[in-house]
Structures are given as C-alpha cells and as structure tokens.
C-alpha cells in the first residue's frame, strides 16, 4: 500500500513560522503604533485621574465596561465553541479550533484589563485578589466583582491550558524541522514530546475532560458578567433573563469574531486549501441560529418591560426606543438581526463574503448592545432629577482602539510563532482535504472499519 506522507501538509503549516513577510512587519508596526498610543492614553489617565474619561454622575460605568463585556463576549468564540465541537466530535472543527481558542485567550486578556483601566485607583487593583489585603480583611465575596475575578481566572486558566496542551505536538513538529535558536526554542516548548501512544492517549483524555469542564465555566463566566448588572437594582438591569441573554450574545459575537479571524488568516497565510467555504457556511448557519436566538431574547426583554409598564423601566425603554439612544438602538437591531438574517438565511449569500459582512455587522451590533445595556440604564435611574447622559472622550476612544489593535497584533504574533491550524488534529481527523491518499474506510486494520464513512469525510 502506497500512502503519501503528511509531509507537504506539515510543511504548509510550518512555513509561516519559519519565514517572515513584509506584511507581517507592516501589521506589527501599524497595530503596534495604535497599541502604544493607547498605552500612552492610559498613562495619561493614570497620571491625571479617571476624570479624563467621559464618565460622570450618575453614569459611572460606560465605555470601559462596555468593552469589558464586549471582549469577554468575544472570548466565547473559542474555547466554548471548540469544546462543544470537540465533544460532539464534529470533524469540520479541526482547522477551526485553534483559530478560535486563540481568540478566547487574547480576548479574555484584553477584556480582563478593562475593569482595571476602569478603576478609580488602578494601582490598588490587587485588592480584588483573594488575600487578606488591608488590615486582614479579605475581599467581599458577596460582590459580583469578586465573582468576576474567580470566573475570569478559572476561564482564563482553563482556556490557556486548553490552547497550550494541543500545541505541544505541533511544537515538536516545528522543532524537528528547524535548526538553531528555533530548534532550542520549540524544543523547550514541546517539553520533550515524542508522540508515543501513551502520550497521545493522555493528551486526548485530558482534552476531553477539559472540554467537559470548560463548558459550564464558559457559561458561568458570561452569566457572572451579566450578574454585574442584574444584581444591581437598576432599571432594565435587574432581570432574570440577563444570564442566558448574555451567554447567547457572547456566543453570537464570538462566532462573528471567529469568522472574521478565519477570513483574515485565510487571506494572509494562504490557507485557502484548509479553511474552506464549508467552514464558513457551517459557522454561518451557527451565526444565523444565534442571531435568531438573540432576537428572541431581545423581544422577550423588551416585551416584558413594555407590558409591565413600570415607570422607572419605561424611562430606559423609551430612551433607547425613541429617545436619545434610539439611533444606536436601531443600528444595533439592523446589525444584529436584519443583516445576518438577510444574508445567512439565503444559501446564495451564505458564502465567505456574506458571512464576513454579517459577522462585521454582528461585532458592531453586539458592541452597541453592551453600550446600550450599560449607559441608558445608568442615565435613567429611579429619580429623574438625577438623570444624566454620557459622551466618550478621546482618551477612552484611544484606549478602546488600542485594544482592537492589540487583538490584531497579538493574533499576528501568535500566527507567526505557532502553527495556526492544529496540524496533528488535522491529520488525525481523516479530514477529506488533509493531503493523504486512501480513504480510511479502506484500511483493513481500522477498528471502526465496518462503520460507514463520516459525512464530512465524504464531502
């Protein structure tokens, strides 16, 4: 039996790690400049005070917390989706998982920075950590912000490990193909990985357990983020729908971010052979489903408020529906509902371009959703004399822009140092487009040889 080795595929995957293009430096330079400006803006804010942001009485939370929720939402792209797909053993997940998991890790890091940027005295942020800081007083574990710490900490730890563990065999591949400092560097990163069956089995078991454990954690993280709002007795915050609403929104924006990242990588790293229209179409279907789910949640939320007609909540309701925030609100509805449904329910537009356009809309729409949850509610609390408003300042916008740039920068760097598609998973998947001849079903020694070929393998 003559079987082509996986060498050409592995070479394809390892190539970006080995050679550097001008584009890489251009991206690093451009995004790096924006990140540096954002860092400078933060330094400026640290020096003079949080007053350089646009926050005011009574809207004490605004753009930074919007970005916090937004980025934590984006982080649900990866680990959660990857874990679900891993558990249901969806074969088409294989080229997607690492792309997604990286989003999780970086988005979580960026998102977790915002509560600190947002603090009045960020130099004391470590008082949030669970240790008896001042006069032997521990943090108040009744505060949703303490829950945030635990939830984000668990999720970030889990996600980083979930991303790192499957990278070890790929580091070993790079190690074997490189010389000089790279060989030492990747040799160290691969922890002496050889690829014995024992190692493979342990790795697979660990990934399976982690996938099971990380799913409820991911759900809990965004539920707890929603608790930051729903625990406070603020009009249109104090709602039981917030947990699932936030989780659904998070997955929604996460998938959109994943589609955008995949499209960008596909172009930049020439992965057209591996990231196929099929992947976009499958993710597009998922995005369509989440869009409908999102619309369902929004309708639920709005209907109960409108029907309840409680005047504190109606103030927020009308402010978003036809008042000061109406333009943002209706933009959000168009971006999150109308555009995705129009583009993705039609098989002719559910192509790569259609998915990218819809995802772009969803990312904008979901950002607006977070903004519209935070700002109008705080501006319209129970006593109308204390109503306020909010306009972002350049410092806030600069820091926000820097986080978007940081995401691109981190992603570019990651793709530079790590094969962005899990090579061994691709190989193991018997994925139809993995460059290997001979169908698995023809292998007489396969233990599942009698089973029919999986549909994705056939396609």
């Amino acid at each position, binding site marked *: 039996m003559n079987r082509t*080795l996986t060498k050409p595929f592995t070479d394809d995957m390892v190539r970006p790690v080995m050679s550097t293009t001008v584009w890489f430096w251009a991206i690093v330079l451009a995004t790096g400049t924006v990140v540096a400006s954002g860092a400078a803006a933060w330094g400026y804010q640290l020096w003079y005070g949080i007053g350089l942001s646009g926050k005011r009485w009574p809207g004490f939370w605004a753009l930074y917390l919007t970005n916090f929720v937004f980025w934590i939402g984006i982080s649900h792209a990866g680990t959660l989706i990857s874990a679900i797909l891993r558990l249901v053993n969806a074969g088409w997940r294989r080229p997607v998982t690492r792309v997604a998991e990286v989003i999780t890790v970086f988005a979580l890091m960026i998102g977790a920075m915002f509560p600190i940027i947002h603090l009045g005295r960020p130099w004391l942020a470590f008082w949030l950590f669970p240790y008896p800081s001042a006069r032997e007083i521990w943090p108040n574990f009744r505060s949703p912000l303490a*829950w945030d710490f*635990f939830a984000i900490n668990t999720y970030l*730890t889990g996600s980083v490990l979930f991303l790192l563990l499957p990278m070890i065999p790929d580091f070993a591949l790079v190690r074997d193909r490189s010389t000089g400092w790279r060989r030492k560097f990747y040799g160290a990163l691969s922890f002496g990985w050889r690829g014995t*069956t024992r190692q*493979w089995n342990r*790795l697979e078991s660990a990934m399976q357990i982690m996938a099971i*454990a990380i799913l409820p954690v991911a759900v809990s993280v965004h539920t707890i983020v929603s608790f930051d709002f729903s625990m406070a007795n603020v009009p249109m915050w104090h709602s039981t729908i917030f947990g699932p609403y936030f989780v659904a929104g998070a997955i929604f924006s996460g998938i959109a971010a994943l589609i955008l990242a995949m499209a960008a990588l596909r172009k930049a790293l020439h992965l057209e052979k591996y990231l196929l229209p099929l992947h976009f179409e499958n993710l597009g279907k998922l995005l369509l489903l989440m869009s409908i789910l999102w619309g369902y949640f929004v309708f639920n939320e709005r209907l109960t408020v409108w029907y309840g007609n409680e005047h504190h909540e109606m103030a927020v309701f009308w402010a978003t529906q036809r008042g000061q925030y109406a333009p943002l609100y209706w933009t959000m509805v168009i971006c999150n509902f109308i555009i995705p449904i129009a583009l993705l329910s039609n098989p002719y537009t559910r192509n790569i371009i259609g998915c990218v356009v819809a995802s772009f809309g969803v990312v904008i729409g979901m950002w607006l959703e977070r903004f519209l949850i935070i700002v109008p509610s705080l501006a319209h609390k129970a006593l109308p004399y204390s109503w306020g408003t909010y306009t972002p300042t350049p410092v806030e916008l600069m820091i926000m822009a820097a986080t978007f740039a940081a995401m691109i920068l981190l992603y570019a760097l990651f793709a530079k140092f790590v094969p962005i598609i899990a090579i*061994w998973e691709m190989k193991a998947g018997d994925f139809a487009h993995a460059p290997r001849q001979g169908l698995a079903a023809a292998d007489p020694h396969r*233990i599942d040889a009698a089973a029919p070929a999986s549909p994705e393998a056939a396609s």
Partner: protein
Amino acid sequence: MSAIYGLYSDPNVAQVAVNNLRAAGVPDADITVISSEPFEHFEFGHRDARTAMPWIATAAGAAGMVATYYLLGLSQHAWPLVTSGMPVAPLWTNLIIIFEMTMLSAIAATVITLIVTAFIGERGTLYDPEVSDGYILVGVEKTGDAGKLESALKIDGGRVKSI
C-alpha cells in the same frame, strides 16, 4: 545497540509490525509506537488507553469544592462585616465561587495528571525526526534477540533502523 525500530508510512503496516512484535514474544509494555498524530482508529493506538484521569479530576473537583466552602466561610467570619443586611457567609453568593473553584481544581488536577503521566512519567528516549514527516515508528528499546525483532519489524512498506 540499544534499540531497534521500524518506520512505516501506513498505519495498517504499523499495526502489522506491532502484531509481529507481540508474536515474537515482546511484552506490550516494551513496544514503543511513536507517531505525529493519534491513531485512535487503530488497535495499536489504544494500548495504554486506560487512565484514572477522569476520576482524579472528579476527586480534585470535589476536594476543591469542600475546601473552598470552608475557606470562604473562614475568611468571611475572620472579620464579620455586614453588608446589605446579608448573612456573613451567604451560601447563595458563595456557591458561585465554590463552583468556579471546583472547576479550576478539576482542570488543574487534569493538567497535573497529564504532566505527571505523559511527560515526567515518560522514560523512553527512542525517537526519529522522520516521525514528523508522518512516519509511524514501531520499536523496542530493550533489545533481547535483535535478529528476531528485526525480522518482526522488517515487513513490506517499512524500514528498520537500529541505534
């Protein structure tokens, strides 16, 4: 000569090599199979599959849960400050942290088990960089009867090397 091994591009052939070694009287524990991908559909990929990892994770999760419950209570009663008329150690809110710590304990235990069993526990040194090109390595590190082993490994579609 400390080890002898064959390199196979086809997992079916590798399976035959493993079977041959077994027939040659090599105990399963002495047969080393190295590949650049898991072969979960082949018998040789299922040797060593048994692991206590899920039980360790469950136990660690349970331990984390109990420990967090008591640590939270202790720290809250260490300086019982009243807020919002709530109890000093309210179970409702503590449950959230207990849950997170349970999961973190389980994840940590899984990773530690992995490191101990798959990295620290690995004593073999047999390796060939050609594995990264897709070859499957089947070999034996403790060489007794070298000729017998070599004939077991030397099958169509494979190369035998020894070091």
